[in-house]
């Protein structure tokens, strides 16, 4: 799609048939691979296909990026997680950062189809990293584009435009924000003073995605929840983002060992 962000359509008719916005799949590339969660970015029941959009982060996503069309994945489990609660509320602001625009897209479509006014704010570090701009524009009543370096749209963070939107007196019934934890935390603190209901989709480290390991636990309103079954969407104003970010970093050393090993074998030394 753009630099280090890839779109993949996977033939999985049963998953496509059951998928709803807000849900994700867990994939395993081969016998040695980790299980990694990826949001369902789109699905087509007639084709029996599920679309995933992912960003190269470490070993698994980099390896996934090298797969050629027609190749089979060892495992593709889903749909997992509780679907988004889509209803007619009035005006919805959807905020997507980086590859977080991918999971925002099916929700924007669904909110629009339910009869809401949809305002989307999407952002990336730079123009060449921005995804789904045309698709988002086609379904939004208003689309605001931001880049950190000013190469496209507003020069700055998505939160600045959200702040302006709320300040201009737009009556917003709900904000949905998906992106890096640090962005979601910032969105939560922007909307808090305006008292706007805000929903975020959390991305803790997962294994099974069915509630049997507890590895994905997050703290919401002081209560421990398993993001893969109780979520992944939660009330942003109650989420303990520090805990989330801290737990996301648990395997930093191991991740870099894996990546180094992968890059070595790719180069063949």
């Amino acid at each position, binding site marked *: 799609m753009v630099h280090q962000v890839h779109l993949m359509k996977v033939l999985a008719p*049963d*998953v496509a048939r*059951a998928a709803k916005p807000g849900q994700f799949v867990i994939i*395993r590339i081969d016998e*040695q*691979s*980790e*299980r990694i969660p990826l949001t369902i970015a789109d699905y087509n029941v007639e084709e029996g296909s599920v679309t995933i959009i992912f960003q190269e982060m470490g*070993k*698994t996503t980099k390896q996934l990026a090298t797969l050629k069309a027609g190749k089979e994945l*060892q*495992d*593709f*489990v*889903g*749909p*997992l997680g509780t679907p988004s609660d889509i209803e007619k509320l009035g005006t919805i602001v959807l905020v997507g950062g980086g590859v977080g625009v991918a999971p925002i897209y099916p929700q924007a479509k669904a909110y629009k189809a339910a009869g809401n006014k949809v305002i989307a704010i999407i952002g990336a570090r730079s123009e060449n990293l921005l995804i789904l701009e045309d698709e988002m524009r086609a379904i939004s009543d208003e689309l605001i584009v931001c880049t950190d370096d000013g190469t496209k749209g507003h020069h700055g963070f998505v939160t600045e435009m959200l702040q302006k939107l709320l300040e201009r007196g737009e009556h917003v019934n709900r904000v949905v924000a998906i992106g890096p934890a640090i962005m979601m935390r910032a969105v939560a603190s922007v909307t808090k003073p305006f008292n706007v209901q805000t929903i975020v989709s959390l991305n803790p480290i997962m*294994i*099974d995605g*069915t*509630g*049997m*390991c*507890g*590895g994905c*636990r997050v*703290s919401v309103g002081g209560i*421990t929840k398993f993001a893969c*079954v109780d979520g992944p969407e939660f009330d942003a104003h109650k989420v303990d983002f520090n*805990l989330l970010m*801290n*737990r996301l*970093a*648990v*395997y930093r050393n*191991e*991740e870099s*060992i*894996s990546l180094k*090993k992968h890059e070595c074998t790719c180069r063949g030394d």
Partner: protein
Amino acid sequence: MMAERQPMPLQDAEERRKNFNEVALGYSEEQAVAEASRCLQCKDPKCVKGCPVNIDIPAFIASIAEKDFDKAIKIIKLTNALPAVCGRVCPQEVQCEQYCVLAKKGQPIAIGRLERFAADHESNMGIEPPKKATPTGKRVAVVGSGPAGLTAAADLAKAGHAVTIFESLHEPGGVLTYGIPEFRLPKAIVRQEVEYIKKLGVDIKVDYVIGRIKTLDELREEFDAVFLGTGAGLPNFMGIEGENLNGVYSANEFLTRVNLMKAFRFPEYDTPVKRGKKVVVVGGGNVAMDAARCALRLGADEVSIVYRRGEDELPARREEVENAKEEGIIFRLLTNPVRILGDDKMNVRGVECIKMELGEPDESGRRKPVSVKGSEHEIEADMVIIAIGTSPNPIIFTGSKGLKSTSKGTIIIDDSGMSSLSGVYAGGDVVTGAATVISAMGAGKLAAQTINKYLSEQ
């Protein structure tokens, strides 16, 4: 004088604490025959009553004594589809062996070890492919591929029904695959048992979460009957301070990483697991023993079990407690964690515990532990594993109406194994709460029988 019970040959404790190879090596032919020859061949064999699947114990033991090992395994397989597993992990001391007449003198026949011997002998010789039954045209869905689901599926396939197993993980076997470690139950054995069940014609669909990809209601429409063997896989936490610190695992997560995802072979396998130096495991059951012994094998300097009751109350298999002690696991009994302590980076640095003493018996009949005031103390730790039990996973209930459960989340069934929904049966840990492999198998068997009856009346 009566001959002594044959000891189980074990991998040396110093060696085995560094590897994941099987600890118990199995009887040699001579040992098996010698052990089998001790059996009194009782007219009214009490041992059989202790076996939840009623194996004809004296008969198979007599065959071993006569060196007719093929006959021995045939007798076992009449009632038990997973002998290589049961012979290894059954808590024999409270089942068959407890009832053996020789148990009073502390020398019961080693029934489990003989069962394992017969099963291993067969797999070395090559397993005879099962005969296919004439099809009945009925379709049965089995949800979950643990011992309950596998047993039910095998019996239903033998009766001629078309059976499909739906399993949410990427490998079948349930706890046998993701929970019990390689050094106690080699995965090759589980795979072999699964292959046998596939040869019976059972179709196994992995990566298939019922409640998500399809609901129970949809299965009921597609199939003539459904068996739920979804286990008790949801980990309980204590709800104490510090449980979400980095370095705190549920036993399920830790064991899944190590066994199912093979993190003990990282980076050859991609899934990582923390390798703690000083590890505290909370709990006293099989799960706690397995977690502790895995942590040791991953290179820990010190692993301790923290358990709130005493030695006699440890729910784990006796043999595994002994094995764990031999490997150097420290037992801190009558001790309970109060909170988990973290450093400024939110990593675990220790556990604050309190001493316990045993008071009056509680509703389970066991003496209730009560804390001793002022006995708080700190145990240094960089990793904590919580193994205090599991509950049924509620995901199966999603999008399905009318399936009744208890306040503990276990599915309610009647004497025949049927749930509150007609044509939907359940058994194993999802009904009883966390129990044993053999009781789950017993439940799978019973349900298969009643499903047969139900389908023949349809």
